[in-house]
């Protein structure tokens, strides 16, 4: 393998990108990871548990971060986006634009800046369910463990307060976006996904009915490091819901929204029904679905959930969700296809199983690539030396994303070898 350009750029530091980067680096390549967020880990860092084992994603992330720490072949940049790519296989010229963090490497995560900070921002890590200070650590397990300042949330000159509070000269309010150029032999796209904007389904009440939330918000509610300290509480009155409805295919398998199946939502809702049941032995969960998709050995998980008689699986598509007049409760109208009837039911809270949208839908990669109308990369039409993994090519779960990313690492290595 050539050593002068034995380098791979991995775009995206979520689970797919981390896996691709680590597998390639541990096989001998030099790897650069560019991650848009201020931390690595991506979507899985926001999950309370993985299905089907109900284990915390931070456990595997911890191993992966250790692998990064111990491996001199990997470097990474957070708050970094690829803004320009030229050249071809074996000698791509890539430009990364790194947004200012306003906090430098001297940060020790002591929290003094956040204590001093008087400005607040909506917490995107918790999907808007709470707020953080403008000077903040994205979450307790954030890697790198380094604060940042959300300049958009700062008020005039208030940044001085953080600066003065910091004993370590870690705050640099004069930081500007930085441009970095690299030569790499190949590129792995691992940009991941965004949840489908649930407000676009006006029949499902998201944004209008207070107690309609999304599946990703439910993950944060269940997590001990989330906005409620791990208690599942409904937004309107912070009460624990006793009867929760899970609405499957909220956007997915719908020509007006996402024509594809988002792969993970059935398993995710079954898992979340267990979150609810674990936290409150009296609570009931109803899951309205079109088809229950628990492929392969995931079937065992479905059986496990079915053993719980307080989880009710109802075959039917939800047609409308409204607020019950005079209460904070939510009325769900669904077609129960098994009975052939319309069902009206009232719930304390509704969770929409919102689907996956590839990040390339809104922000195409700065290379002329072919996409499906839904924004997925068409892998057969990628230029030589460019590989796409995980949800860039279609919805996938974590396990299969990791398999795919491991394969992409090898293809990338082969690409490097081809040139030398």
């Amino acid at each position, binding site marked *: 393998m050539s050593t002068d350009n034995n380098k791979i750029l991995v775009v995206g530091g979520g*689970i797919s990108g981390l896996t691709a980067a680590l*597998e390639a680096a*541990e*096989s001998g390549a030099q790897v650069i990871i560019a991650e848009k967020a201020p931390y690595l880990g991506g979507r899985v860092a926001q999950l*309370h548990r993985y299905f089907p*084992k109900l*284990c915390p*994603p*931070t*456990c*595997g*992330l*911890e*191993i992966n971060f*250790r*692998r990064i*720490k111990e*491996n001199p072949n990997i470097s990474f940049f957070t708050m970094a986006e690829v803004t320009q790519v030229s050249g071809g296989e074996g000698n791509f010229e890539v430009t990364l634009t790194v947004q200012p963090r306003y906090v430098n490497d*001297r940060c*020790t*995560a*002591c929290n003094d800046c956040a204590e001093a900070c008087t400005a607040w921002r909506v917490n995107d890590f918790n999907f808007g369910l709470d707020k953080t200070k403008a000077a903040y650590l994205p979450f*307790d*397990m954030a890697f790198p*463990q380094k604060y940042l300042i959300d300049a958009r949330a700062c008020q005039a000159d208030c940044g001085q307060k953080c600066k003065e509070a910091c*004993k*370590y*000269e870690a705050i640099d309010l004069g930081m500007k976006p930085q441009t970095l150029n690299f030569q790499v032999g190949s590129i792995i796209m691992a940009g991941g996904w965004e949840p489908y904007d649930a407000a676009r389904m006006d029949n499902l009440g998201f944004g209008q009915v207070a107690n309609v939330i999304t599946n990703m918000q439910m993950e944060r509610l269940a997590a*001990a*490091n989330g906005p409620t300290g791990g208690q599942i509480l409904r937004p309107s009155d912070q009460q624990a819901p006793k009867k929760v409805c899970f609405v499957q295919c909220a956007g997915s398998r719908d020509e007006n929204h996402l*024509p*594809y*199946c*988002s792969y993970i939502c059935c398993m995710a809702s079954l898992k979340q029904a267990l979150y609810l049941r674990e936290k409150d032995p009296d609570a009931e969960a109803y899951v309205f679905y079109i*088809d229950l*998709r628990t*492929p*392969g*050995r*995931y*079937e*065992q998980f479905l*059986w496990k959930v079915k053993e719980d008689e307080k989880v009710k699986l109802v075959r039917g598509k939800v047609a409308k969700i409204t607020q019950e007049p005079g209460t904070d409760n939510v009325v769900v109208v669904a077609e129960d*296809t*098994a009975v052939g009837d319309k069902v009206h039911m009232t719930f304390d809270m509704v969770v929409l199983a919102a689907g996956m949208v590839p990040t390339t839908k809104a922000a195409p990669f700065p290379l002329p690539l072919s996409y499906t109308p839904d924004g*997925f990369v068409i892998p*057969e039409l990628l230029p030589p030396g460019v590989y796409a993994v995980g949800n860039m090519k*279609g*919805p996938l779960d*974590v396990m299969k994303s*990791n*398999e795919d*990313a*491991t*394969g992409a*690492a*090898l*293809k990338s*290595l082969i690409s490097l*070898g081809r040139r030398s």
Partner: protein
Amino acid sequence: MEKKFGVYLCKGCGMGEALNFESIAKVVKKEGKIPHIKEHDILCSPEGLDLIKQDMVAEGINCMVIAACSSRVKYEEFDFPNAIVERVNIREQVVWTQEPNTEATQAMAEDYLRMGCARVKKTELPEPYQTECDKTVLVIGGGITGLSAALEAANDGYQVVLVEKEAQLGGYGAKMHRQTPSSYPYTTLQEPVVFKKIQAVLDNPKVRVMTGSLIEKIEGQPGMFDAHIKNNGNVETVRVGSVVLAAGWRPYDATKLAHLGYGLTKDVITNLEMEELAKKGKIVRPSDGKVPERVVFVQCAGSRDPEHLPYCSDFCCLGSLKQAMYVREQNPDAVAMILYKDIRTPGQSELFYKQAQSDPGIMLTKAEVSGVSLAPAGKLLVSATDTLLGDNVAFEADLVVLATGIVPVTVDDPVINLDYRQGPGLPEIDVYNGFADSNFICFPYETRRTAIYAAGCVRQPMTMALAEADGVGAACKAIQALEHVAAGMAVSPRAWDETFPDPFMQRCTSCKRCTEECPFGAIEEDEKGTPFFKINRCRRCGTCMGACPERIVIFKDLNVDLIGSVVKAVDVPELEDEDDPAPPLRIIGLICENDAMPALDAAALHRLRLPSIIRFIPLRCMGSFAMEWIKIALNNGVDGMVLLGCKYGDDYQCHFAKGSELCAYRLTKLSETLDKLGLEADRVQQFQIAISDFDKLPQMLDDFVARVTEIGPNPFKGL
């Protein structure tokens, strides 16, 4: 190397305000016996680091104790090549979880320094274990998975031996008439991709293809496996470095599906028999050779059925949609009816489902098929309940196709036939319904046999497109294993590790606990029954070390004596008054460094209060836990010991699969011993904790402290 020690104390992040550093320095000098001590207000700053670097140059300091934050942070700053660095966590574990400026907090910090000094003295730099390493990949199975694994490994420059038991390559992929589309727009059936792969493999000079061959035995270890391959009655021994197991599947035995009409007439066939018909060119009824007008597909024939296969076979929904298209393509007047429990076309394959649905001649309904019977005029009747068309509906059919599922070949055949003391196959196959799978979501290729990676349908039910990709991933792992073995490093999950177990064999009593307990089958026995280590199979969890009653297993940075010295370094307060209602107690905590330790760090980040009488010692895995440490601790007057390990059982979270479970097993033996000594078993307890359980730690640890307090001080204290 000649060790020169230095201790560096950081006063930042509140440590300077909460602790008495003069007193700490005294302890280090007097008890830690390291006179070279420096402190800095911000040790991780460039100025602080310069202090250390200057000492390295000017004083030759090469072994340092850095008392500052957790080793999980500031790792780049405190990385000094070729030096032994012991991080002592007095930020998260002391200052951020304790009351500032109390005696207890000060005592805690001083203890951690004592422990750090003890540890650095016993730690040595690793020297990698390097052996010869043959960089050939053995791929078992010549189906789509094995072919793509072989091809991509060869494309990356590695030699490959591809072993296929049949006379031809291609597996079930080659028996398909058409393949469901694997790319956008997911509407048209494609030619099976396997034939191109076969040709590419045959054309690749780096791949040696051995058809009609079986693995008789694989012996040795990663980098130097000897595969005994049987071909035509001859056995050839081939040296390889790593293995991809892609032995695939077989269809579920349809004769067990009499309740669905199989065997009733020739016109009830399996999906595989349907492929054969289509491939021959014409779909006809086997009974009379007539072209069927109505074909009914019965989904989940065997799959998702506790009486048959307790899993979904993943590809059958797509397969029947495809075969419905065959029927319609051949005869535009024919009707294909698919009876399903759920249609499972996840991801973008939904678009293919939509395409099939758009054909009015393909009808689909949810149904529980209750039976298949003969009807007049040679027709069949498929009865079903719970359909979208009502209850108790019967569908007339000329031909019934049972969508039979897959059975991994490993269900009754180890295939790899390892010459390992622990058995010929991958362990615990039954937990995964016969599949050669693991339970790791994050690391799907990990098996409990190092450098052997399973892929394709032998690992999980999957479609052809996924199997093809899976083979490439497994090939990547197989190549990586070769490179790590050659460099003398471990593979996942400690892929960076250059330490290895080096047993002092003269003291071995051949009790074989290590050989039995090693989760990876790394320890064999010679003819005399003496264990010997196959280091390249080792994953460095230290389970052998914890298992060995003679304490002979030694890693450069971890061994029974080393941790024993750390335990001994803890200052145990003396019991001055027998009747003290609140006697001073001391507890040792042994914690998993991947999960419990970060959970404790997170508790500190949230500024939760934790008991001040516990001293934590991180271990790479609880599997390395040695009973000797309890003896040492109790002999030194320690009052209790708490072990924080990962979840065990079928859904285990231990990354060495068995570590925390074996630790718990050893503790069951311990309670007998403690009983005999008149000590309460509750003094030593193990808890299962996940990395995300930071919020549970205060209560868990407070409860344990309360229990030990209730039991009272260790009666051996001061003896």
